[in-house]
């Protein structure tokens, strides 16, 4: 067993390809999360554009029925699991240690493992376009040969059983879906444990919980939500995988399985998931708004506790996704009320953000525009969400485009706007350079316009009776004009994303030097050089108050207005110098090969389970299990010290 440790010496390199592959630096991992999520954003976006082309006019013929089903399933699955979640993970990985004054997360190798498992889970899921097969139920008159584009999971992102049972959805695509999501969930679960531990144990001196930036707080809530909700979907996915692979009967109605059970499990995970998607964006916006309003966050404690309240209440509202499925009137009333209740903490936050901007000296930079866009669009989405809590109204909206409009207002107008606010806001920290403000504003206004053109008309389409997940609509339904507007809006969004990509690519090389604190900001990540050195803090800071950095730069006059201290300029220059020149050499954990090896091995296990009826499938399974086990042993025995000391150390074990 010691072979593993002697085969792989602990790698030394921290640059180049192998530097990225073996890194356990939270910043590099965060960047990899970000780029991967952005890649999948493009994939999910292309899927959305195909859907919109199909629906642009009545009786569209761009996609076949099978392709349409595959596209909307993959669009939803991608955007939730492969875009917004990892993008939030990117922010949390990169920023949490910087914000709380730590040199890394609590378990750096586990952090790398989370990323690699996520990446290979995503690759596994998307390999369905290469290898997946579909089919219609036996005797189904619509059985057709699907193209490669249609050979993707087609059960919807919610994957309602029993439709996902093998006799109704033969072929392997739903195996790719269920096992792929299982792998990706594993990554989230690991990362949640890691980040919770980081927040509880690695805060700098004086960084009490109630002095943490709101983003750190929202991350804490999100990671608790992940820790409690991912196991629920894991159980459900195990059940469906067992039904599909090993003949169990959990959802087989014909043999007494429960057809509603999946819905309960899925939404008991699915509703907290919604908050998992939105809370990091709320955290980002709570950082951006005070900085560009030149005021502290209004009602810090209220924002924090409202976030925590959302976390708790989020577990008590799931049945509002299933009001039409025949649950009892008492349960409907109870879930209707709990859904109304969850609007309260959300409303508190919105008013606090407005209070933050109220009377502030607003600076309309790109991140600020996105943050304000977030508040406005999220409010619209939140209000249409409240209409779902009115049970009789919800029955009429169920499965119509009104619902599609609602959740895009919260997840696109909310989460994605928040993410872009964060990407622009921390761009100078990440790259050390400034982005082009002009292109950033083009991006914002085009996206804002395109977004509203895309999703606002969906409210009306839904109320007109346009049903979701339906391949075509008849010409006499009179839905054509607004659908055309929606499609045009979708392409405007796509254009704005291209502007963002251009801005990002050019500015990170040629942008103006940003310095350590270009926004005159409040939190600890702005007290270190941009981009941050590998050790983050040359000296771990001591914190004496909320927004400590701000108070070191500003005092108050008699009327409570902020007055910049004379020594603020020297303070920042001094921080930059000291950040780059640590007094003592700083010891950092060495990189490791094992996280990526385990990631690959787990992907092999996934393929092994899909093809377990073939001998080569079993071989893949065995290879994966062996690879995982060996890598874990190697991981456990990996010396913590530098490679030079490895050989003598390794033999002792």
């Amino acid at each position: 067993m010691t072979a593993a440790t002697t085969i792989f010496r602990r790698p030394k390199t921290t640059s180049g390809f192998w530097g990225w592959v073996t890194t356990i630096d939270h910043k590099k991992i965060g960047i990899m999360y970000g780029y991967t999520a952005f890649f999948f954003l493009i994939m999910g976006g292309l899927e959305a554009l195909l859907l919109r082309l199909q629906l642009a006019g009545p009786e569209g013929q761009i996609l076949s029925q099978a392709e349409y089903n595959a596209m909307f399933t993959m669009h939803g699955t991608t955007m939730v699991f492969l875009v917004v979640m990892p993008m939030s993970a990117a922010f949390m990985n990169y920023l949490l240690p910087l914000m709380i004054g730590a040199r890394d997360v609590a378990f750096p190798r586990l952090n790398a493992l989370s990323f690699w498992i996520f990446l290979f889970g995503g690759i596994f899921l998307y390999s369905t376009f290469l290898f997946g097969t579909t089919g219609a139920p036996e005797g189904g008159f619509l059985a057709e040969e699907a193209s490669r584009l249609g050979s993707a999971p087609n059960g919807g992102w919610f994957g309602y059983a029993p439709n996902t049972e093998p006799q109704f959805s033969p072929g392997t695509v739903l195996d790719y879906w269920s096992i792929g999501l299982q792998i990706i969930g594993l990554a989230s679960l690991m990362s949640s444990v890691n980040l919770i531990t980081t927040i509880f144990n690695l805060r700098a001196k004086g960084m009490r919980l109630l002095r943490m930036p709101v983003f750190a707080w929202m991350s804490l809530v999100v990671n608790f939500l992940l820790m409690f909700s991912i196991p629920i979907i894991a159980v459900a996915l195990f059940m469906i995988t067992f039904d599909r692979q090993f003949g169990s009967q959990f959802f087989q109605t014909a043999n007494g399985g429960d057809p509603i059970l999946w819905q309960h499990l899925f939404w008991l995970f699915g509703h907290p998931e919604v908050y998992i998607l939105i809370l990091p964006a709320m955290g980002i916006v709570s950082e951006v708004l005070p900085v560009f309003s030149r005021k502290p966050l209004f009602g810090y404690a209220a924002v924090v506790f409202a976030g925590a309240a959302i976390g708790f209440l989020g577990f008590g509202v799931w049945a509002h996704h299933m009001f039409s499925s025949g649950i009892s009137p008492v349960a409907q009333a109870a879930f209707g009320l709990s859904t109304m209740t969850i609007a309260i903490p959300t409303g508190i936050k919105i008013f606090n953000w407005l209070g933050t901007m109220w009377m502030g000296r607003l600076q309309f930079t790109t991140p600020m525009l996105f943050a304000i866009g977030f508040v406005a669009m999220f409010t619209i989405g939140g209000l249409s969400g409240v209409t779902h809590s009115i049970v009789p109204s919800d029955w009429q909206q169920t499965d119509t485009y009104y619902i599609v409009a609602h959740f895009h207002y919260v997840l696109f107008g909310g989460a994605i706007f928040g993410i872009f606010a964060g990407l622009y806001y921390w761009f100078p920290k990440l790259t050390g350079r400034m982005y082009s403000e002009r292109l950033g504003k083009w991006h914002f206004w085009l996206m804002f316009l395109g977004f509203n053109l895309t999703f606002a008309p969906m409210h009306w389409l839904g109320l007109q009776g346009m049903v979701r997940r339906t391949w075509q609509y008849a010409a006499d339904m009179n839905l054509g004009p607004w659908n055309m507007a929606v499609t045009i809006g979708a392409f405007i969004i796509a254009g704005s994303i291209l502007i963002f990509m251009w801005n990002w690519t050019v500015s990170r090389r040629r942008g103006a030097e940003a310095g350590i604190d270009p926004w005159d900001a409040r939190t600890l990540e702005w007290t270190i050089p941009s981009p941050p050195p590998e050790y983050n803090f040359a000296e771990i800071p001591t914190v004496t108050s909320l927004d400590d950095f701000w108070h070191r730069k500003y005092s108050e006059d008699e009327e409570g207005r902020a007055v910049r201290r004379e020594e603020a300029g020297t303070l920042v220059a001094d921080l930059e110098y000291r950040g780059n020149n640590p007094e003592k050499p700083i010891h950092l954990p060495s990189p490791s090969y094992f996280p990526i090896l385990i990631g690959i091995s787990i992907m092999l296990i996934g393929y092994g389970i899909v093809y377990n009826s073939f001998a080569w499938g079993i071989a893949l399974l065995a290879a994966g299990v062996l690879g995982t086990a060996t890598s874990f042993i190697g991981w456990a025995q990996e010396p913590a010290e530098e490679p030079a000391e490895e050989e003598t150390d390794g033999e002792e074990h």
Partner: protein
Amino acid sequence: MSEQNATQESMHIDPYERNWIRISIILLIVFAAAVTIAGFALGFQVPSPEERVDPNNLTGPWENPGLRELSPGVYDLYIIGNATTWQFEPREVEVPVGSTVSFYVTSTDIQHGFKLQDTNINMQIVPGQVSKLTYTFDEVGTYDYICTEYCGVGHAAMFGSLTVVEK
């Protein structure tokens, strides 16, 4: 002195803010009352499981789904959804204007939806469970019913229509 001011200020609630709080609380009470009254006093129908059936072996009225006249102008309509052929059975129904129709809908295999356009009937159809809602048709016309719950490749093809004709 400044500390005292700070305490007083933190206790102070702006009149606008106080009104906002009041309005929000009143709205919540109105919403809660509306739901409670609608659910319990007005007896709004919920598409609750009317009865349990064996989806493999549908007996009684299900052997011959369709319209049953109970008394003049009062009908029971039995409809089965199926995901092998992606059809509602029956696909076409005709009733005279002024009829009160109780929809009994179930599925033989997986979950479907049943939405009668231009009415407030929308229910999820669950195998093993009969969903029931009642509606009175006072206007002549064609009402399409469509499957709203995604049910596989033929989902978009799953629809039927109810025609209300002059007496």
